[in-house]
């Protein structure tokens, strides 16, 4: 796994809808820009060796960093794979849609649910929104949220951005009726 750089974003909301949010609503993102393990190769039918060589390492790299950046317990989480123009979206999916990748974050965050994800291909500076859901119950409506990310110089055509996102709470001023109230 060749990491070119790591970008950390911490978003803190203190005021929403004109009312104070206390404590501030925090969302953290840590993104690693890595070389696409399949870059420069003709169509690769079997992605398993690239997954085996990279997915767990990237998950292990990012999980502690995003929890550290959040600076408190994780309540909601999500992930992203943004592939440079020379790659396939399947390359990004291969790296994040495996338990080898996600279990690092799931264990560190004491989570149980599937990680919601965005997969996309684009040029350097492409914007993407990472969806987040509650870490133990994906039906908890107050925690459905997303965060926008853009890295000006990534991904290069032969790179992939792999990112994890964590939130310390649901949406600021969340006040929708729970799903159970409609059943």
């Amino acid at each position, binding site marked *: 796994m060749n990491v070119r750089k790591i970008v950390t974003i911490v978003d803190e909301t203190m005021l929403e809808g004109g009312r104070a949010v206390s404590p501030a609503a925090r969302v953290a993102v840590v993104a690693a820009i890595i070389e696409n393990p399949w870059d420069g190769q003709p169509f690769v039918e079997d992605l398993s060796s690239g997954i085996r060589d990279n997915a767990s390492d990237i998950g292990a790299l990012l999980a502690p960093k995003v929890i550290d950046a959040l600076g408190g317990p994780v309540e909601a989480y999500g992930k992203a794979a943004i592939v440079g123009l020379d790659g396939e979206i399947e390359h990004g999916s291969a790296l994040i849609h495996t338990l080898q990748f996600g279990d690092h974050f799931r264990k560190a965050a004491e989570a149980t649910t599937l990680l919601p994800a965005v997969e996309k291909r684009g040029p350097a500076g492409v914007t993407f929104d990472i969806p987040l859901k509650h870490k133990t119950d994906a039906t908890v409506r107050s925690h459905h949220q997303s965060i*926008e990310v*853009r890295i*000006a110089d990534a991904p290069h055509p032969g790179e992939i951005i792999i990112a994890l996102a964590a939130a310390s709470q649901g949406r600021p001023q969340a006040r929708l009726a729970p799903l159970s109230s409609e059943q």
Partner: protein
Amino acid sequence: MRAATAAVVANPWAGRGPDADLSVASAWLAPAIAASLLDRILRGLGGAESIEAFGKGAIVGTTGEIEHGGALIHTPYFGNLVRESLEGSSIICFADSRGAAGQPLVVPMWHKSAAATRSHYQTVDIRIPDAPRPDEIVVIAAASTGPRPHARIGDRTTDEAVSWNKLIGANR
């Protein structure tokens, strides 16, 4: 390692016109912004001793004036406090802009105590998708823990004395 921290604040002068006195609000608001930005940038980069370069910026929402951004970053109530907390002595380089929410800004940085140190000329990009609203201002402080990666374009001490006369003469 480079970091940019941004505070999104209500523009205290939005809609007040060019006769508004900027000094009063600047004196109480700019230090409050500086305190929250500096706290985060120092924590993010590991303290003033780790920081070698700095910069600042402002993005003014569309109902404000560029001058409103200047009132928050170009007075001692911001600049002096940034310099003091990051233990620098240079003038702080800057960028400012006015735009809609999501307007990107490339924030320049240079060495905090020797501004002409060429290896430390660098920038960091920042963009906040939902800010500034028309009546808000994004105020930015940025810092770097070192020079550009693989900086190798020399310095003033190694430069040749280049002039038009010399270049044209050499081609004759």
